[in-house]
């Protein structure tokens, strides 16, 4: 399914600050729909922070400040004319800590389609809810308890619920912050399958600590370290032949 290779999103010289503290330094990166992009790097290096700049979720952190340019389909998302609401609908996000709404499982999934008017009838909505839960690999476990609160699920179930919620609106870009951290291998496999399936039509960015996973699902990998983008390139190259020593050390587990 070859598509245009113009980047879906691109970041240029992005700096992010929390108050005085700089969390991201001068990062430039391109993300396209042909490839799944993985962000790797030690804990606290700024992966989540950078991910959140891509759909302006950092706006909600009072102390956060973003510099530089980030474009979506060529349009600067930090320009004043940008429609943040539409931006976030187009750039979906799964958070690192699962955050289901204190609503029923059904309503959690239906939330996005409802506000965006993606379903005209209850039946349509039911279809969307079922397919989203299926794709997130949660349907079988919860199909009998769709009325239960989303907060009464196990950790892994909550995480899958949040993935289902994010894909229910069919965004163009999907940002996933460690979507499989609380998942067992089977559930992980399902999510990876989902990612494979989405690739090509959607631009996907995934943060992961699991090198194997990065190698399995991504075509391009970005390695962050201490707030800088150390290396960005095709996954196979990064994993087999990294240009930088830091990257190599990290991947081979020698770093630290």
């Amino acid at each position, binding site marked *: 399914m070859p598509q245009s290779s113009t980047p879906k999103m691109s970041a240029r010289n992005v700096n992010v600050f929390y108050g005085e503290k700089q969390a991201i330094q001068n990062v430039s990166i391109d993300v396209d729909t042909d490839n799944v992009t993985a962000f790797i790097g030690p804990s606290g290096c700024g992966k989540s922070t950078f991910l959140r700049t891509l759909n302006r979720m950092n706006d909600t952190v009072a102390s956060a400040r973003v510099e530089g340019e980030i474009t979506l389909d060529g349009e600067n998302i930090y320009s004043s004319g940008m429609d943040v609401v539409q931006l976030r609908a187009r750039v979906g996000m799964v958070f690192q800590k699962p955050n289901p709404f204190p609503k029923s499982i059904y309503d959690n999934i239906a939330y996005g389609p409802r506000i965006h008017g993606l379903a005209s009838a209850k039946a349509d909505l039911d279809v969307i809810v079922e397919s989203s839960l299926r794709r997130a690999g949660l349907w079988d476990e919860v199909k009998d308890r769709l009325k239960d609160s989303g907060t009464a699920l196990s950790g892994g179930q909550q995480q899958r619920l949040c993935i289902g919620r*994010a894909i229910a609106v069919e965004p163009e870009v999907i940002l996933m912050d460690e979507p499989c951290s609380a998942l067992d291998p089977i559930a992980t496999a399902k999510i990876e399958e989902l990612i494979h399936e989405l690739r090509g039509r959607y631009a996907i960015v995934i943060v992961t600590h699991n090198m194997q996973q990065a190698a399995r699902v991504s075509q391009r990998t970005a390695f962050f370290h201490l707030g800088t983008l150390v290396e960005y390139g095709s996954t196979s190259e990064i994993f087999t032949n990294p240009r930088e020593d830091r990257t190599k050390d990290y991947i081979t587990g020698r770093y630290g």
Partner: protein
Amino acid sequence: MNGVAIVTLILGLGLVAWLSARAKAVRLAPAPSGGASRNRSGRPLLHSLPVYHGWYAALWVLAPALLFLVIWANVMPGLVTERALQDSAAAALPIDAMSRSAILTEARNVALGNAQAAFDPRANALIEPYRSAHRFYSLGGALAALMLAFAGGAFAFTRIRPDFRARTKVERVVMSALLVASLIAIVTTVGIVGSLLWESLRFFAMVNPFDFLFGLKWSPQSAAMGYGNEDAFGAVPLFWGTIFIGAIIAMFVAIPLGLMSAIYLTQYARPAARAWLKPMLEVLAGVPTVVYGYFAALTIAPNLRDFAAWVGISNASSESALAAGLVMGVMIIPFVSSMADDSINSVPQSMRDGSLAMGATTSETIKQVLIPAALPGVVGGVLLAVSRAIGETMIVVMAAGLAANLTLNPFASVTTVTTQIVQLLTGDQEFESAKTLAAFALGLVLFVVTLLLNIVALHVVKRYREAYE
């Protein structure tokens, strides 16, 4: 011995016990080097922190001694009187119990320095016996209290050992304090029902409860001036007036203004603006009601009447439910806004983030995620506001009048239950008549009605609340 001195002394003992018990516990404790329950050498650590041992000892010193003093304060007057009566002067007292106790009370008041002189000369002879009996018993009480304090302290002190569960014991006391605190609410409720019930029963002996509860005519002047009780005590217009002004008109002002202010302040306003505006709005709740009353009566009401006349409402009066309700609504804005503000603000950030990341607008996030999660606080605020509105009198008297009309016309004069209660209780009339007793019956029925409202509200909140985590 004087009361203040002995209490201070016992408090001092408590402090000493606290310090020394804590010091003893510190001495008993092995150097902390291991985990929560033992150190590396295997010797058990203190079960509880030394401060808890301190509090344990202090409680044993203070509680029994102070409790004894309270009890003693209550039984002592009786004992003192008994002893004083053994004096020969007591023989001169009259047999009649009432005048006898009056004389005794006088003698006691003079003996204790509470009165300059006795009204009755027979009391004079008893003053000295009273004084000496009082001295005897107060000294005895003081000694007993001190002994109790020492005994309690000694007992507590011997129990301090590393494995002694001082924290558990102290916490049990704290827990009982919490329980007692919540019981105070119950006691107050019982007190209120009690103080209303008796008089209400007397009222219902005079007026048929059915007529009272379902009667459609409340005539304040019949109630007050005694043209007979028929037809005078139908409380429905009062309850309607209360609901009309307090729960409908005032809420039409307070809920939208209060809730929307809270939403704006928490979600849209800059933090600095919020820090200023929220307390500013709270001032509205503290403006004395006389001020609102004047404003409602002299500015709002005449304008409303002119407006009503202009749109062609014929029987518009210069006192109107609308004038009182509008101003009352303003007064209770902070009840809604501040409590809603706090609850909305304390919904976890991750909920907000979750919704915004779905592409929801701020207002959608507020309406669909934040408000449902903050529901208990919002409903709590609204309930408080309604409660406050129901209890308000001054604005109603000044702006809505005292005429008990059963009407849907907001430009007409109506009155409320509370207003009538205040008028009946503070007006110039005999205390034992149906007119005054009606105030108690009104109070009781109002109590029951609001109770029912609250039960409904409790269930609504339980049903619709969305608890995060």
